[in-house]
């Protein structure tokens, strides 16, 4: 018990020192306080944003954008990944194009998306969906291709038809990698949501109010947004790692 308290204290030492340093910096005259806004201001603005329910509304909007994009991208990605792994024709037709497009960082697609679909909320969701789609297609395809031959031979011996082979043998065998892909896609979806919100600055969302706060030079609000975006990123990451460990514990 004492050991864990000790390690907890050590873990908190650096952030506390940094907060203290920030506080001291904020006391060094007016120009320093412009960048290093006093902690009391950050706290006041957090309370302000939380009390009005404004922050909750934007957080909810961002999370739902991320989830909608993730769901759409995941379904499309699993569909394409499966098609590329099972059909040579699809692999020929779409494989090279998919791999070429995959090389462009997701955020780099923003200018094209903006020209084709405008700078509305749909474009944000589309970008999130693309981020999830790319990871899911890759992991589904590689997962299915990596299924060991002896499993497939077993399906052959049991005279399973194509559908049964897929649902009973190929998909379960590829599941660990598909799940790994989904967990990665979840992280990417959050990153893409924040990035797209910052760039499009439209509709409700944490990234949107953060960008507006930056344009209004409100460092206090920017910090509050950063803390919430970071906390969501951290929570998502921990959740994904835990789900991954739990779901794949039988592989040990």
């Amino acid at each position, binding site marked *: 018990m004492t050991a864990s308290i000790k390690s907890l204290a050590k873990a908190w030492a650096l952030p506390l020192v940094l907060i203290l340093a920030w506080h001291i910096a904020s006391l060094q005259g007016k120009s320093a306080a412009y960048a290093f806004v006093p902690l009391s201001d950050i706290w006041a603005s957090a309370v302000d944003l939380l009390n009005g329910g404004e922050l909750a509304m934007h957080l909810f909007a961002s999370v739902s954008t991320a989830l909608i994009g993730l769901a759409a991208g995941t379904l499309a990605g699993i569909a394409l990944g499966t098609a590329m792994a099972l059909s040579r024709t699809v692999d020929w037709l779409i494989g090279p194009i998919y791999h070429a497009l995959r090389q462009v960082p997701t955020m780099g697609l923003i200018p094209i998306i903006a*020209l084709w679909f405008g700078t509305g909320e749909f474009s944000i969701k589309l970008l999130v969906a693309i981020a999830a789609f790319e990871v899911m297609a890759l992991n589904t395809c590689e997962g299915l291709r990596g299924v*060991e031959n002896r499993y497939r031979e077993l399906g052959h011996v049991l005279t399973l038809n194509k559908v049964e082979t897929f649902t009973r043998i190929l998909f379960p065998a590829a599941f660990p990698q598909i799940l790994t892909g989904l967990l990665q896609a979840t992280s990417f979806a959050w990153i893409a949501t*924040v990035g797209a919100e910052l760039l499009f600055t439209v509709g409700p969302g944490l990234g949107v109010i953060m960008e507006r706060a930056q344009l209004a030079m409100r460092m206090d609000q920017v910090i509050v947004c950063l803390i919430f975006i970071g906390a969501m990123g951290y929570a998502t990451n921990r959740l994904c790692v835990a789900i*991954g460990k739990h779901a794949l514990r039988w592989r040990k």
Partner: protein
Amino acid sequence: MTALALTKAPSRRANASLLERGWKVPKVVTAIASPLMVLALWWATAASGVFPSQILVSPERVVSALVETWQLGELSTALGATFYRLAVGFGAGTLLGLAYGVAAALFRPIEDYTLPFFTVIRTVPTIAFVPVLILFFGIGETFKILIVAKATFFPIALAAVEGVRGIPQRYKDVAQAWRLPLPDTLRKVIIPAALPDVVTGVRLGLGRSWGALVAAELIASEVGLGQMMELGRQMFRMDVVFVGVAITGLVGFGLDRVLRSAETRLSRWKAG
């Protein structure tokens, strides 16, 4: 992402396509057939005039935009600025990440006091730091270089921690038996043994920082590849946007390729 890499690499034997159909076509044909078809379709659609040129430009227009931006020096200026930021930020992020990772793996107090905090910071999307950094440093070079350095630092630092931790104890024992001083132990034992893991981290870091840099340039920049695309978008120059996106993809692909080959070579060397 280390914790997420739960799956084994697919075995080589099973790599052949499923549901074999028994017809073989040369690999070159399968690789270029569909891009050529897309190109033909693109060309035909653009030539048909169904879409206005702000929505769809012909392939020739894209090629001429490439030539034009190159001849005017726009493209080389943009690429020069972008590569400069990438080189400085990535270089700094790599060195710091490596130094920190090795130090944290070798000295327990450093790990205890900093690793938990860094593990949290790592999960904050890099792009979310852009507004804070702009308020601190303005929209100049500093903020972009810091973004690249942040995106680079964490994957490399964590890979270095894992790499150094994974070094067999007997290597360290030998170094101790020879009473090697710390600098020599680092140079001759620790760094070579951790290198394959580190290179994987470097590859991840480079990919992340390339994406982050392009995004940062789209948000705020006076010059650079991202700025060129953003300006093209604002002026409805679809051809310029296409050139920018294509170059972004090619550079990302090229950087990844170089490090991937280094990775394969090093892991083979480690196994052998």
